[in-house]
C-alpha cells in the first residue's frame, strides 16, 4: 500500500535571542494521531544541500542557519514529499506532525482491501463493475447480488431491499451519510435514490453499525460517492443503457473537478425512461417508468478540516400494473384463480392510472475538524423533503386528483467526535436531533391513510473498536434514542369503537364531528440499543467474526395509524395505536477465507425479535362496494434463523466460478406458524471467463434458482358475495420454484486513455421463463418480467 505523506505545521515556535546565520533549527517529527515520534524521515532545506534524517525519537536539527524564512521538504521512503515553511528567528524549535493515513481525500484504513464500517458485523460491498451493470436498474435489484439480500417488489419498478428476511423501516438507507426519510414504511414505496449518484454501495446485515441508528433490525445500506482524489484534475463518466424489455433505457453522466488544495465540485445527472414491461406471454400494461435525478457536491477536504455541501433531487413517475387495480374481494378471487391478467393493452410509453409520482429533495452541509493528538469532530445538518402522490383510477370530476398526497419534511442535526489518539483504540461518540413533519393534503377527497404528524428524535451513542493484538479486535457500542410522535388523526367513529379505542384512548379525542373523531395521539419511545463483537484474524487469509446486536425500533406512522382503503390494492390497511417498539437480539457470525486461488464465507445468524410488527391479511370487511380484504398490523414474538454462504474458485487465471446460497426461516413463536413474506431459499451459480489481453473481455453465465417457499401462514376463509358462500382466499400461498439464467459479456477499448471505453451486453431471464415470485405483490395478477436484453456503453474521460 502506497502512503501519501501529509504534513501539518503547528506554529508554536520558541524564539530565543538571535545571531545572524548562527541559528539552530531543532525539529521533531510526530505522528498526528498519537504524537508518537516518526523515525527515518528525510528533511531537506529547499534550494540548499543541507539534508538530515529524523532519529529514533523523531528529532532532527540544522545548524548555522540565517534568520528568515526557509522551506523544508520532508519525505519518507514510502511517501510523497511535502513542504513546510518555517520562519527562523534565532534558535528555533519546530514540531512537524505527519499524517500518513491519507491516500486520497477520504480516510481509508490501510489494512485490508475493502474498508468496512463495522468490525464484527456481516458486511458486503458491491464492486464498481456490479454497480455499472445495474446502472439502469433499481437499487434493490443491484443489491440482490449480495448474498442474503432479496427484494420485496410491486412489479418490476418498485423494488424494496430485504436483508436476511427483513425490509421497510427495519432497513436504514444512508445516502451520502444522510438517513433517507422517504416514507419507507409503505410496501409499495421504493427507496428514492438514484443508484448512479453513488458508486460505493455496501450492506451491513443487522444493527452492528450503531452510529447510524439503533433501529436497523434488518440492516443498513450505505451509499457513498467515490472518494475524490486530491489533485488538479477534471474527469467524468457517461453511461448509456438500453433495454429490450420496456423498450427504453437510461443515461447517466458525472463530471468532477478537483484541486490540489482539496477543493472539489461534482455534478451528476441521470434520466431513465421505460415503457410497459413484458412478461413472456403478455404486456404488463401500465408498468412504464420515468426517473430523473441530479446531484451536486461542493466541498473542500483538508487533513485538518473540511466541509461539504450536497444537494440531490430525485423524481420518479411509476405506473402501477393496470390489472392489479381490482374492485373487491371477488375480483381478487377471480384473479388468483384465473392466473391471467384481466386487462392487457397494447404496448405504450404512456403512464396512466394507477400510478405514483414521488420526488425527493436532499440537502446536506457538513464540517469537520481534526484536533492533533485527540480526534476528529464532525457536524452535519441535513434537510429532506419527500412528496408522494398516488393516483388511483377515479371517475368523474376526481379523475385527475391524487388519492394520496403526502409531504414529509425532515431536518436532522448530527455531531460526532472520533477519538483516535490512542494506538489501537478508536472511539466515536455522537448525538442526533431530528424534527420531522408530515402533512396529508385533504384536497384529495379521500380520507387520509397516514395522518398529519410531527416527530421528534433525539439520540446519542458511543461506539469503540479496540485492537487487542494483531489478530484480535474487539468492538462495543451503546445507543439511546428518544422519539416522540405527535399526530392529529381523524377516526371514523365506527372504526374507533371497532378497535376498542373508546375504552383505551378516550382522553385523546379533541373534537367530535359526529361520524368522525379528531384525536391527538402522542407517543414517546425510549429505546436502548447495544452491540458487541470481535474480529479474529486467524491468518492473512482467514477471518472469524462474531457479533451480537440488541436493537429496538419504534413503530412507524403506518404501523400506528394507517386506517383506510388502499384503492389500488383493494385492501383495507389497519394500524394499531397500541403497538410498542420491537426489540431484536441478533447473533451473527462469519468465517471467511480469501486467497488468490479460492475463498468462502459462511455466515449464520439467529435473530429473535420480541413484539415483532407484522402486516398480514386477517379477514374481509363488507361495504356497499363489495368486500375488501383487511390487512392488519399485529405484534408477536418472532424468530428468524438463516445462513448466507458463498464460495469462489479461480480454476485458471481466466476462469472463475462463484456459488452463493442464502436461506432464512421465520417463525411466529406465539402461534408457532411461519411468518409472512419471508424470502424463499435461493441458490446462485455463475461461471465467468476473463482475459485481460483481449480488451479485458469478460463472458459470464449465471444461474439463479429460487426454491418454493413452503413455510407460509395459513390462508384466510372469506365470504364471497358473488358466490354467496365461504371460500378460501388463496392470498398467502407462494408460487412454485423457478430457475432463471442470465448472461453477460463486456470488453474495454482505448479511445484516448487506456480502457476508457467499455461496451457490455447482458441478458436476464435468458430463456424467457414464465414465473411468479413470492415477494412480488403483483403475483396474484401477472407473471414476472420476461427476457430483458440490455446494451451498455460506458465512457470515462
Amino acid at each position, binding site marked *: 500500500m502506497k502512503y501519501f505523506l501529509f504534513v501539518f505545521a503547528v506554529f508554536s515556535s520558541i524564539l530565543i535571542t538571535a545571531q545572524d546565520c548562527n541559528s539552530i533549527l531543532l525539529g521533531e517529527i510526530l505522528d498526528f494521531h498519537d504524537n508518537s515520534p516518526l523515525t527515518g524521515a528525510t528533511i531537506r532545506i529547499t534550494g540548499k544541500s543541507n539534508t538530515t534524517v529524523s532519529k529514533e525519537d523523531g528529532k532532527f536539527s540544522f545548524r548555522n542557519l540565517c534568520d528568515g524564512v526557509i522551506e523544508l521538504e520532508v519525505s519518507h521512503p514510502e511517501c510523497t514529499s511535502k513542504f513546510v515553511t518555517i520562519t527562523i528567528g534565532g534558535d528555533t524549535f519546530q514540531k512537524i506532525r505527519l499524517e500518513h493515513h491519507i491516500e486520497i481525500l477520504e480516510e481509508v484504513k490501510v489494512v485490508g482491501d475493502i474498508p468496512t464500517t463495522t468490525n464484527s458485523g456481516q458486511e458486503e460491498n458491491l464492486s464498481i463493475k456490479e454497480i455499472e451493470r445495474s446502472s439502469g436498474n433499481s437499487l434493490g435489484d443491484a443489491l440482490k447480488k449480495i448474498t442474503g439480500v432479496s427484494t420485496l417488489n410491486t412489479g418490476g419498478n418498485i423494488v424494496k431491499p430485504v436483508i436476511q428476511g427483513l425490509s421497510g423501516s427495519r432497513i436504514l438507507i444512508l445516502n451520502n451519510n444522510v438517513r433517507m426519510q422517504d416514507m419507507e414504511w409503505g410496501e409499495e414505496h421504493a427507496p428514492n435514490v438514484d443508484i448512479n449518484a453513488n458508486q460505493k454501495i455496501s450492506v451491513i446485515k443487522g444493527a452492528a453499525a450503531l452510529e447510524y441508528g439503533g433501529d436497523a433490525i434488518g440492516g443498513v445500506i450505505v451509499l457513498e460517492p467515490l472518494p475524490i482524489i486530491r489533485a488538479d484534475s477534471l474527469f467524468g463518466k457517461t453511461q448509456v443503457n438500453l433495454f429490450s424489455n420496456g423498450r427504453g433505457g437510461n443515461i447517466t453522466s458525472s463530471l468532477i473537478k478537483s484541486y490540489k488544495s482539496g477543493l472539489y465540485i461534482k455534478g451528476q445527472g441521470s434520466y431513465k425512461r421505460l415503457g410497459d414491461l413484458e412478461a413472456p406471454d403478455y404486456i404488463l400494461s401500465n408498468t412504464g417508468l420515468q426517473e430523473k435525478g441530479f446531484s451536486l457536491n461542493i466541498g473542500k477536504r483538508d487533513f485538518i478540516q473540511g466541509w461539504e455541501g450536497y444537494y440531490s433531487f430525485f423524481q420518479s413517475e411509476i405506473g402501477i400494473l393496470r390489472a392489479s387495480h381490482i374492485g373487491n374481494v371477488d375480483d381478487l378471487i377471480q384473479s388468483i384463480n384465473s392466473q391471467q391478467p384481466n*386487462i392487457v393493452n397494447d404496448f405504450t410509453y404512456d403512464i396512466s392510472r394507477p400510478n405514483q409520482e414521488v420526488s425527493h429533495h436532499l440537502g446536506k452541509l457538513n464540517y469537520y475538524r481534526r484536533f492533533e493528538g485527540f480526534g476528529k469532530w464532525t457536524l452535519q445538518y441535513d434537510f429532506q423533503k419527500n412528496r408522494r402522490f398516488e393516483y388511483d383510477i377515479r371517475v368523474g370530476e376526481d379523475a385527475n386528483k391524487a388519492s394520496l398526497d403526502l409531504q414529509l419534511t425532515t431536518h436532522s*442535526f448530527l455531531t460526532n467526535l472520533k477519538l483516535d489518539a490512542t494506538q489501537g483504540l478508536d472511539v466515536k461518540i455522537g448525538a442526533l436531533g431530528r424534527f420531522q413533519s408530515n402533512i396529508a393534503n385533504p384536497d384529495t377527497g379521500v380520507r*387520509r391513510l397516514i395522518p398529519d404528524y410531527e416527530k421528534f428524535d433525539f439520540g446519542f451513542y458511543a461506539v469503540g473498536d479496540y485492537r487487542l493484538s494483531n489478530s484480535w479486535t474487539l468492538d462495543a457500542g451503546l445507543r439511546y434514542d428518544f422519539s416522540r410522535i405527535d399526530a392529529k388523526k381523524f377516526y*371514523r367513529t365506527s372504526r374507533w369503537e371497532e378497535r376498542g379505542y373508546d375504552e383505551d384512548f378516550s382522553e385523546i379525542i379533541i373534537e367530535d364531528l359526529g361520524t368522525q373523531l379528531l384525536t391527538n395521539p402522542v407517543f414517546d419511545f425510549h429505546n436502548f440499543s447495544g452491540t458487541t463483537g470481535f474480529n479474529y484474524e486467524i491468518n492473512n487469509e482467514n477471518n472469524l467474526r462474531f457479533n451480537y446486536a440488541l436493537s429496538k425500533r419504534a413503530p412507524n406512522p403506518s404501523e400506528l395509524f394507517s386506517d383506510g382503503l388502499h384503492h389500488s390494492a383493494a385492501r383495507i390497511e389497519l394500524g394499531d395505536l397500541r403497538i410498542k417498539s420491537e426489540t431484536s437480539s441478533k447473533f451473527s457470525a462469519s468465517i471467511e477465507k480469501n486467497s488468490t486461488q479460492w475463498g468462502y464465507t459462511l455466515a449464520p445468524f439467529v435473530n429473535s425479535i420480541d413484539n415483532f410488527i407484522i402486516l398480514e391479511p386477517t379477514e374481509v370487511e363488507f*361495504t356497499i362496494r363489495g368486500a375488501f380484504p383487511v390487512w392488519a398490523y399485529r405484534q408477536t414474538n418472532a424468530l428468524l434463523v438463516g445462513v448466507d454462504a458463498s464460495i469462489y474458485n479461480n480454476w485458471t487465471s481466466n476462469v472463475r466460478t462463484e456459488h452463493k446460497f442464502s436461506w432464512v426461516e421465520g417463525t411466529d413463536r406465539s402461534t408457532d406458524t411461519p411468518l409472512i413474506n419471508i424470502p424463499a431459499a435461493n441458490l446462485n451459480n455463475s461461471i465467468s471467463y476473463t482475459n485481460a489481453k483481449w480488451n479485458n473481455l469478460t463472458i459470464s453465465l449465471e444461474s439463479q434458482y429460487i426454491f418454493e417457499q413452503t413455510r407460509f401462514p395459513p390462508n384466510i376463509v372469506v365470504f364471497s358475495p358473488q358466490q354467496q358462500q365461504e371460500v378460501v382466499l388463496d392470498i398467502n400461498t407462494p408460487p412454485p420454484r423457478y430457475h432463471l439464467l442470465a448472461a453477460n459479456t463486456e470488453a474495454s477499448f482505448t479511445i484516448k486513455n487506456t480502457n476508457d471505453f467499455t461496451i457490455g451486453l447482458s441478458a436476464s431471464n435468458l430463456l424467457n421463463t414464465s414465473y411468479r415470485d413470492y415477494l412480488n405483490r403483483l403475483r396474484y395478477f401477472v407473471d414476472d418480467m420476461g427476457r430483458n436484453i440490455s446494451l451498455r456503453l460506458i465512457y470515462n474521460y
Partner: protein
Amino acid sequence: MNTIKEFTRKTSLRSIFVLSMLVAIITSCSNDDENPIAVDEEEVITTMNVTLSSTNSGNILLQSQDLDGDGPKPPEITVSGNLAANTTYTGSIELLNETETPAENITTEVSEEATEHQFFFNTSGSITSTTYSDVDVDGNPIGILFELTTGAAGNGTIQVTLRHEPKKPNDGSLADAGGETDIAQSFTVVVE
C-alpha cells in the same frame, strides 16, 4: 497556502453561522398547533333502495344501507317481504348519500351521467330474469328502471352492481363491461 487556509477558516465559520441560523429558524417554526381539516368523502353512496312493485302483491323494498362507508360496519341488508311466484315486477333503484342531511339523491346524478353508468343484475334460484326498462341517449341500457320476473316458489338471489365508466355497449357481463364498481350488493329473497 495561507490565503486558502484563511479562506477555509472564514468559510467554516460562515457555515457554522448558517447552521445555527437554521437551528433557530426550525425551532421557531415548529410550533404549529392548527388542527387539520376533516376530509368529507364526496359522492359517497350509503344507501341503495331497490323497489319491486307488482299490481298483485304490492311493493317490496330491498335495501342496503352502509352509513360508515369503508368503515368496519357491514352494510345492513333488509328485504321487506317475500316475492310472489311467477310474477313480473317493475323495479326501480334509488341511491342516497345519507351522510348528509337531508339525504342527497345520487340517482339523479347517475341518470344525468347515464352514458357513464350502468346497473348489472345477476340472479339465481327462483328469480328467472331481469330486463332493462330504460336507455341512455345512445340507446344503451342504464338499469335505474327494470323488470324482474320470478319463477316457481323457492329461494333466490339478486345481485345488483353499479359500474361507473363501463364499456358501453357491452355484452351484459361485468367482465366485458369493466369500469369501476360503485355498488356491489346481493339480496337473498324468498319466492312463495
